[in-house]
């Protein structure tokens, strides 16, 4: 699956200002019943809204500072390296490697018990930044540091998808 650009699967080329684009019709996966989802939902702020809007389109964004060139993740209103507010949304290839991970076997966290055992991982993207997420679609015993992965999106409800990662 190397080179398969899952995060732009609906064929739209990545743009520098995704918030300017009209909502793209989402893929064919049925929207799950929102009452089935009992995990915490992301808090969507003015700073992070473009990120979450892109996730709903199954696109993963990082940020690149126009002043100093630093790439950063998670989204912020300013560059965490030089404090410039001139930060651009940059499409990520969605590809990376597992930086580190743990397999959780016991939890009291609401909504997570049905997922046990599940993999929590830090993934280093090709863009050079680390993302915390889950590795899904892979037997947890097969997950390893350095394993190549790519982003996939879990559709939580209308307008909300959460980036996860799977093997490639």
């Amino acid at each position, binding site marked *: 699956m190397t080179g398969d650009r899952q995060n732009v699967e609906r064929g739209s080329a990545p743009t520098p200002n995704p918030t300017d684009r009209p909502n793209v019709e989402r893929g064919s996966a049925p929207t799950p019943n929102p009452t089935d989802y009992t995990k915490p939902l992301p808090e969507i702020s003015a700073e992070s809204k473009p990120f979450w809007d892109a996730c709903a389109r199954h696109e993963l964004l990082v940020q690149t500072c126009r002043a100093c060139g630093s790439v*950063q*993740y998670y989204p912020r209103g300013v560059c965490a390296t030089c404090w410039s507010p001139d930060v651009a949304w940059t499409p990520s290839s969605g590809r990376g490697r597992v930086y580190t991970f743990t397999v959780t076997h016991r939890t009291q966290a609401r909504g997570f018990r049905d997922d046990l055992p599940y993999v929590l991982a830090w993934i280093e993207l090709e863009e050079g*930044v680390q993302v915390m997420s889950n590795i899904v679609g892979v037997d947890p015993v097969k997950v390893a540091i350095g394993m190549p992965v790519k982003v996939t999106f879990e559709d939580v409800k209308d307008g909300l998808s959460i980036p996860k990662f799977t093997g490639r």
Partner: protein
Amino acid sequence: MISAPLHLLDCCVITDGGGALVVVHPDLARDLRTPPVRLLGSAEAIAHTSAGRRDFLVSAAAESGPRAFAEAGLSPRDVQMAMIYDSFTITVLVTLEDLGFCKKGQGGGFVSGGRIALGGELPINTDGGGLSSNHPGMRGIFLVVEAVKQLRGECGERQVPNCRVALVHGTGGALGNRHSGATLILGRT
């Protein structure tokens, strides 16, 4: 297994608890019945996700430890016992490396063979630590209390012989994400 590779005994207990300290100016300390313990050096630091470029093997102790030692004019070899915040076993290993007791990556070997047990070169967490004794969620006060008792010679069967300098290091937050580190170097009067 709880969260691989941490098993049940790699994780701290969950308890209630509390502690208190009285801190006084050296002028007042002269008249106290109980020999006071002196703060020789201290420092705090914060580690965070570094906007997505964090070295996970290094904690805030790598910054607070050297600064505390520098203020005290001491080094790890001057320390007879240490109270190291132990939410999990890995917390202790990373902290010992970052404080300079051993090289990065060698924490496992350092704590093997009884080195950190009573009677070893560097007894650690002689009150049983968060792993065995207590962890109310804010364990740090117990680290200072036990270090003070060791320096005063009040620890009976768990007394570290001739304890002149003790190190205390607390970690707050999430080791793998955002956390703080605070290092104290304490000395007997």
